[in-house]
């Protein structure tokens, strides 16, 4: 176990922020750390806490330093506090302070807005760990188990990064918020996580892959826009987090891809041409493509909701204040202030979805969502390549953004996945074909049997092309603790 009395923060916590000489943050971290370790210990089944996991640890921000691989027990993971190196002469990239020197301290007038953004971002990090806490028990391989834990510890580290910012820059309020991050918990009735999507348990591995592909990608977009912040420490923190977030996308994309690959392989081996021959496909221990499409529909639409309202004053304020930019703000060729610019957003008028021009400043969320949609489409194309290569006649599609929405202008209206308004009856009839049913869930659950022998995989998923850290196929990614 971690020796909490004698934590040498400067040596045990990899950091590039001068932790050992920063009395303020040290004192705050010392108070916070035990609560964090408790949180972690309560969360992860004991068997896994004591297992040795082959994890990547970031120990510094240079390319060599942020991917050191070794076996470690998760609670002893070295939760680095690492910020991307400071860029000399960086200026505020957007809003009314455009071009002024980036803030190295929190500007008093935006303190609360910044704090709120950081708290919301921070709240999602432990939230996803909580949602995924039992997945280790049904991991389809040691390789996948290791990837799950890698994602978990990195979400944990991202929590550290946000807590560091809160403790370093937001005084007493910040410390209280940092503590509350450990008080709230996913799915809790007393104190749930702030965003709805982080209060749903991740029930199975396909959900996990979909989550890391779609929902973590929302996280990535949020980090991208915070990386454009005029508050330099936030920008630097998020830039470094993005290097880790890329791995989560990888886990999601390859996880779904390997599931598809196995389904197609089994279909071919058994001469099944019709992807809708669901019972037969399922009887062979793989997940049929229409069900994968339904899972995709669900996770994609939940993730779209995370972007908030199409027209948002909060987002406009944050952009104008220069504390949150757009995706790759520096590559956009405009005044970066959006003084007169407009942007096309969806609205709902006279019973149908229409597109409208609104002041671009108020459409910041929508723009980020559009960038997200483009970004998310890439992996779907690669999945289709796998299907095509296997000679199966099926194409996965992102549903129309009006489908299954709980937030924004489409909420409360019956759209089908193609974006067509349908009647209530049509909607009810369509839903079992569009979104996973409980029966689908039962079936997927039935496949979730743990496989813990090195190099072996569950029936429904193909092995990866390449091992982590180029390890051979039978590498023991997790040395399970046997009680």
């Amino acid at each position: 176990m971690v020796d909490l009395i004698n934590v040498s923060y400067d040596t045990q916590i990899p950091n590039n922020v001068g932790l050992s000489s920063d009395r303020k943050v040290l004192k705050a971290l010392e108070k916070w750390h035990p609560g964090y370790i408790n949180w972690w210990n309560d969360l992860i089944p004991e068997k896994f806490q004591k297992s040795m996991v082959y994890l990547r640890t970031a120990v510094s921000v240079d390319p060599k330093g942020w991917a050191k691989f070794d076996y470690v027990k998760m609670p002893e993971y070295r939760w680095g506090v690492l910020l991307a190196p400071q860029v000399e002469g960086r200026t505020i990239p957007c809003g009314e302070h455009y071009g002024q020197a980036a803030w190295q301290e929190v500007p008093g007038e935006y303190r609360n807005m910044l704090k709120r953004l950081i708290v919301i971002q921070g709240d999602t990090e432990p939230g996803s760990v909580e949602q995924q806490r039992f997945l280790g028990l049904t991991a389809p391989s040691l390789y996948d188990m290791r990837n799950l834990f890698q994602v978990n510890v990195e979400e944990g580290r991202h929590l550290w990064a946000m807590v560091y910012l809160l403790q370093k820059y937001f005084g007493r309020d910040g410390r209280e918020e940092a503590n509350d991050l450990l008080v709230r918990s996913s799915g809790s009735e007393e104190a749930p996580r702030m965003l709805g999507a982080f209060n749903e348990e991740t029930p199975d591995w396909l959900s996990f892959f979909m989550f890391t592909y779609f929902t973590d990608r929302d996280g990535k977009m949020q980090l991208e826009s915070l990386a454009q912040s005029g508050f330099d420490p936030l920008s630097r923190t998020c830039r470094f987090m993005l290097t880790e977030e890329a791995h989560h996308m990888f886990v999601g994309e390859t996880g779904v891809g390997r599931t598809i690959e196995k389904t197609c392989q089994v279909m071919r081996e058994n001469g099944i041409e019709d992807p809708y021959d669901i019972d037969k496909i399922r009887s062979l221990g793989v997940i049929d493509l229409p069900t994968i499409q339904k899972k995709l529909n669900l996770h994609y639409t939940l993730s779209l909701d995370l972007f908030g309202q199409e027209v948002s004053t909060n987002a406009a304020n944050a952009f104008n204040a220069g504390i949150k930019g757009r995706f790759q703000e520096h590559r956009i060729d405009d005044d970066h202030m959006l003084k007169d610019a407009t942007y096309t957003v969806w609205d709902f008028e006279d019973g149908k979805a229409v597109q409208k021009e609104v002041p671009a400043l108020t459409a910041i969320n929508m723009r980020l969502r559009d960038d997200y949609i483009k970004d998310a489409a890439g992996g779907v194309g690669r999945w289709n390549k796998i299907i095509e290569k296997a000679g199966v006649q099926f194409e996965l599609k992102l549903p129309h953004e009006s489908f299954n929405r709980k937030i924004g202008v489409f909420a409360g209206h019956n759209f089908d996945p193609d974006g067509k308004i349908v009647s209530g009856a049509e909607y009810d009839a369509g839903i079992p074909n569009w979104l996973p049913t409980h029966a689908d869930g039962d079936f997927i659950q039935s496949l979730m049997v743990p496989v813990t022998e090195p190099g072996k995989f569950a029936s429904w998923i193909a092995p990866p092309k390449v091992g982590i850290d180029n390890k051979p196929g039978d590498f023991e990614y997790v040395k399970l603790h046997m009680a």
Partner: protein
Amino acid sequence: MSKVIDFQTDPSKYRHWKVEYDGPVATVIMDVDEDAGLFDGYKLKLNSYDLGVDIELSDVVQRMRFEHPEVKTVVMKSGKDLVFCAGANIRMLGGAAHSHKVNFCKFTNETRNTFEAAEQDSGQKWIAAVKGACAGGGYELALACNHIMLTDDSTSSVALPEVPLLAVLPGTGGLTRVTDKRKVRRDRADIFCSIEEGIKGKRAKDWRLVDEVIPNSKFEETVAERAREFAANSTKPDVEKGIELTPLNRTIDDKGVHYDLVEVEIDRDGRKATITLSGPDADAPGSIDEVVAQGAEGYLLKLARELDDAIMHLRLNEMELGLWVFRTQGDPEQVKAHEDLLLANEDNWLANEILQFWKRVLKRVDVTSRSLTALVEHGSCYAGVLAELLFAVDRSYMMEDEFEGDNRPIATITLSESNFGRYPMGNDLSRLETRFLGEPESLEKAKGAIGEALEAEEADELGLVTMILDDIDWDDEIRIFMEERASFSPDAMTGMEANLRFAGPETMETRIFGRLTAWQNWIFNRPNAVGENGALQRYGTGVRGEYNMERV
């Protein structure tokens, strides 16, 4: 504003007032020099006044109390034949920026309150001897006196013509004093306030607009008789000699304003003024006689005068400094000892005057339209009267525990009896009573801590400060608070603070500073008064103001 408005003056410099002393009776004669306006562009005709006239009046009132404690009755009259006073100069108002009008009204209100309270506070009773036209601000001067005598010459009248003539209000307490102090029936007050020519003779007396109406032939005589009579009936003890209010030692430069005991440091980028009050450099005098001997050099009087001047300076000359930060440095025990000596001798005239003066200065703080903050740092001397500042400000921050590299004595707050009623606010409650309006038990607890040097945790426990902060948080929290405060709309801040500061009951004073002033300031922003064709602009052109007839 390029021209610095100076609130320091003395009788040798007066242009508008003369004061004659005759034993217990003083006569204050208003004789405004029409060519000596504070700014260009208007003439102070008919004994009309501007801020400069009022600064002198304020000085008269103050010196009357400190330099002439033998005075028991003060007669205010006009030095001109046909007019008592025509009120605030309309051309000055028409040409002034909104901010100046507001500050002008606030200062004149404070001065009216001061001579109005002179009877109760110091036994100096003011009589208005009204001969000639007494209109608008002129009648408001009279209203603030304790006794109004009007000559019955068939032309002299009292009037509040602001509404019909200028489309503004009698805003220097006029409307409020007519109903609250003179207790004029509201329908009569309604008539009185809507007619230009005012009311004269017997009716003025019947309606309680004046106390006496006197035949013109006997006017001077009766006024003199009444003054002597009031003086003779006064319970104010005889005092042979006052003290001299010597000029303040003050320099003003780019960095701020510097006095012996008060240091004002200006941070224009941060829109902030830091006002540091020093503790005494010596033990309290051994006796009250010594305090009298020290005169204007005595610690608490000198500090009050310097602070008062600093407040006025910042209010009128530094309008963009929206945040005032009070600090103190010194020995709290010494501060308390100085105050204790006065409290123990409050029947001594000077002790009383100094304590009353502090009451007024603290009220000035209360009604100042700036965000007010106090820092209780190590080495502070917030004891008794200075602790009162903590309860006047919008927020206070106190250092907790030792700070690295700071060897000043640990921050403390020391309450004294005086914090529980000696310096009431405009609402007639002590600041602590107001602070603890919803928790009277906290007031009792605080009383139990009188005399103790309370460190941060105890002060926090007693609810005496907003927030206590240790070494680690202090700089950041304070900086961020100040930056945030400086970024808010000054208008919203003024409105919010003025509303939050005065919890509890209404008094005439709170109604003047709250209700009347707020309505007046609203009207001062409306085109019907100040627009190009508004009444204030058109005054004197022969053309009436043009009004938008929509009721808002």
